[in-house]
């Protein structure tokens, strides 16, 4: 059935047939359009300082290691926002004041934090850490054997064979989706995905790319199929221009990469193309200098866009689970540029209606020198794969498949309990 659908859509796209919108969407998805899952990964590129987002404001190690302006305050007009959490009875964890929008989601039990999480490997290299995480492994040796991304391998376990099962809302395909058939890169859907020359141009391109199996030919054919299927479904005004996306519930996204990307994901998930997984980036986290000012902007944008995405997708009939992650946390001690260098343990977030939110998960390792990783950084007490494994179970994958296919060599124990059962 799925295959038939895919082939039908391809044929429709290839012929440049403009089917009435309702017709194609019913034929394509029908009743399955409701009650389906969408998994979204937001990757914070550059190493987000988790200690500033969910901040242990009364931890003596934190107070000693960072100059006052480098810390979230416990009191005053810029005090961190309270997060009631059973994670550690002695530590007062506060949310960064610029991330206020996340406090509502947290209190509404739609959002959970996982602290002191990350790679078991202690690399302090952005690009090595990103590669390891995106390919779902923990060491360089495993990198050689696993050239596809963990999200691509998860997708193949989900058996999603739709027109557009996966999208990376960035210009080039993210490594976590490397190897996923039919994965698209689409950083922005605001102005549509039109091809030059309209239906005639499409036909000309199809003639040029038909049956070509070389790398350019294959990429071109895949692009033509998917984009023409999407283009058919975008609403057009009287001037035949693609109409702007109108988020539901008056949700307002920022006009930045993350905002445009999440909006593209929301728009695509509302279309009948079978979107199952998506990822998007937020850059700018490598705060080696001038950290306080930069993090104000970063956390504000992150919180606003996540809240907008949550509001927009509420009641859409799609069960959205959003994971926020980064390659590593930052150095506990601040440097003399008012910044922090590359560290180790970080913070993850999971957001969605099935999340057991309003809690900080994991184990707080403490910030005394002997409790730190290599004496300098927040230790990792939760493997990033422990979080993703629970997310994947919630997405319908079996424990066996996760251990053998998605994260080879990793045994998920599913002990965090991030989701309501």
């Amino acid at each position: 059935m799925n295959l038939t659908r895919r082939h039908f859509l391809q044929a429709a796209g290839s012929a440049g047939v403009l089917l009435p919108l309702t017709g194609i969407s019913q034929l394509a998805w029908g009743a399955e359009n409701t009650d389906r899952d969408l998994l979204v990964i937001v990757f914070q590129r550059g190493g987000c300082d988790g200690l500033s987002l969910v901040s242990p404001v009364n931890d003596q190690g934190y107070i000693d290691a960072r100059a006052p302006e480098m810390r979230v305050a416990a009191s005053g007009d810029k005090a961190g926002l309270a997060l009631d959490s059973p994670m550690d009875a002695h530590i007062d964890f506060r949310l960064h004041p610029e991330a206020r929008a996340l406090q509502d989601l947290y209190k509404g039990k739609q959002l959970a934090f996982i602290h002191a999480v990350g790679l078991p490997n202690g690399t302090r290299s952005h690009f090595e850490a990103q590669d390891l995480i995106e390919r779902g492994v923990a060491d360089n040796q495993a990198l050689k054997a696993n050239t596809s991304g963990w999200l691509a391998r998860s997708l193949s376990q989900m058996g999603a064979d739709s027109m557009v099962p996966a999208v990376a809302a960035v210009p080039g395909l993210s490594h976590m989706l490397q190897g996923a058939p039919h994965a698209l890169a689409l950083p922005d859907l605001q102005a549509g995905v039109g091809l030059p020359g309209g239906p005639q141009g499409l036909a000309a391109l199809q003639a040029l790319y038909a049956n070509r199996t070389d790398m350019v030919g294959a990429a071109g054919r895949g692009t033509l199929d998917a984009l023409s299927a999407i283009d058919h479904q975008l609403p057009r005004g009287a001037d035949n221009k693609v109409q702007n996306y109108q988020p539901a519930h008056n949700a307002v996204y920022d006009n930045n990469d993350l905002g445009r990307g999440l909006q593209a994901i929301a728009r695509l998930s509302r279309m009948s193309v079978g979107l199952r997984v998506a990822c998007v980036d937020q850059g700018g986290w490598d705060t080696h200098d001038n950290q306080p000012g930069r993090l104000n902007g970063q956390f504000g944008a992150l919180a606003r866009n996540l809240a907008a995405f949550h509001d927009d997708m509420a009641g859409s009939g799609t069960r959205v689970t959003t994971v926020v992650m980064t390659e590593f946390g930052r150095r506990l001690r601040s440097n003399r540029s008012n910044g922090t260098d590359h560290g180790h343990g970080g913070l993850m977030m999971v957001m969605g209606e099935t999340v057991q939110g309003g809690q900080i998960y994991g184990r707080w390792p403490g910030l005394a020198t002997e409790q730190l990783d290599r004496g300098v950084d927040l230790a990792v007490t939760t493997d990033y794969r422990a979080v993703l494994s629970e997310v994947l179970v919630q997405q319908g994958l079996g424990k066996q498949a996760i251990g053998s296919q998605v994260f080879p060599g990793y045994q998920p124990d599913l002990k965090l309990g991030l989701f309501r059962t």
Partner: protein
Amino acid sequence: MSTKQTEKKDIPAALLLNRCAYGPTERDLDALRAIGPSEWISQQLNPPAQEDAVVSKRLADLRLRIRYAAGQGYAARDEMAPLSTLDKPIEQVWNLADFKQPMAGNERSRPRFEVAAATLVRAAYSPWQLREVMVDFWHNHFNVYAMDAPISVALPTYDRDVIRKHCLGNFRAFLEAVATSTAMLYYLNNRSSRAGIANENYARELFELHTLGRDHYLNEYYSRWRDVPGATTGKPTGYIDQDVYEAARAFTGWVVEDGTGLGGGQNLPQTGKFTYVETWHDNYQKRVLATDFDPFQPPMADGRKVLDLVAAHPGTADYVCTKLCRRLLGDTPSKAMLASVTAVWRKHLKSPDQIARTIEFILHTPEFADSAGARVKRPVDLVVSYVRATGIDFTPTDGFIYELDGSGQRLFGWAPPTGHPDNNDYWLSSHVMRKRWGLLMGLTDNWWNTGAIDPRFGLGGGSTAAGALAVHWMGRFGNRAGEMDRIAGLLDGLGLAPDRVLNNDQGGLQQMRRIVAFAAMSPDFQYC
């Protein structure tokens, strides 16, 4: 050539002009055929220092729009202005980076636009094409993000006095030019690094991205420097985090004259130039790559010693030569090939033309001669090769640069210090594929005022049959014989019969232009 390859192969002219130039033009093809590949390569690797006359004229004639509304303390501006920052020393433009002076953001970002425009002009028209290819390579290797105002202002100097000056020269000298450049000192924060707790940003990327590379980051040894293979004999095979920490200390005090307070009411001058501030330097003993540094060395000696160590490290030869091969071959070199390339690199460690010698060697390998079809054009390669093949009288515009920025390749605007990806996959994403087609259509229909196209360029004559025109352009865009069978389908898609005669009227010219643009969208033209 000092190192003779044994199995010398003929280098196809098209390969050379696609890989070592921004695509063939008649003039370059003729020049290459007249002197042969070896001489062509040798000439290309010895370009004159001064700008080519044709390029100079185009740059002098170029006008780029600058437009903004009035703001607090400044008036509105909307004009076609000449390029004004390219030739100036940094102190003459540094006021653009002074945030105390009220000014529109577009004034501060202007230098980046000017360098981007000049880069496109040189790529299209410079006879010294291989230099332009290598300038692009090194701009990515030593990436900076010029969307930030101070780096935009420092970009003309960085492009001119660092990248262009050293792109074919000696790597050790290149490294120091980068380390003391305002653009890099801002981008990787060394300007704010101080004794005490140094800022590690530059030191880490110096090892990981500029020299030894990630494969030589021996993270598993972390603090046990003696356990790193070779360390006890002073020749560690790789680096560890402690090397990063220590190197960061070595570069403290390498800063920019940016007006920062020195204490006691004194400030650094505001010139944007490099300077060394002894009182900010961490003078105590250090150990980098298993080499001891004595305390209290002369000014800048610590940083220079780090540069000496990393420039001479065999890991740097491996990493940089692998990247050079990947760029020039379109693929990772075999172990045997890499060994022969690094031998040349290391033999010329002290030569003023170390990089040129290495490139020359790579281009004479049989692997290079066999590498056609291995590399995919990035958007800039594509648009410039299109301009060169179609003879468009090309002038970059702000609108065109904005469009290019959205294509996945932002000249001097890639945020992470890796530079743009150099693997084909990235440039084959659905987004980039779509943008390729849109860029070709827009250039052809002159959407961004970059210059009109003559759809009969290279054909001459009056009216043309659609089929003949398509054959002409498909061939010109490097389509192999078998691809010509697609012409019927291409024309059919465009609603044109092959024997349809297209006249010189508006409708006919529009149809002709569509044929040119779509022929360039063919898969074969996407390879270089």
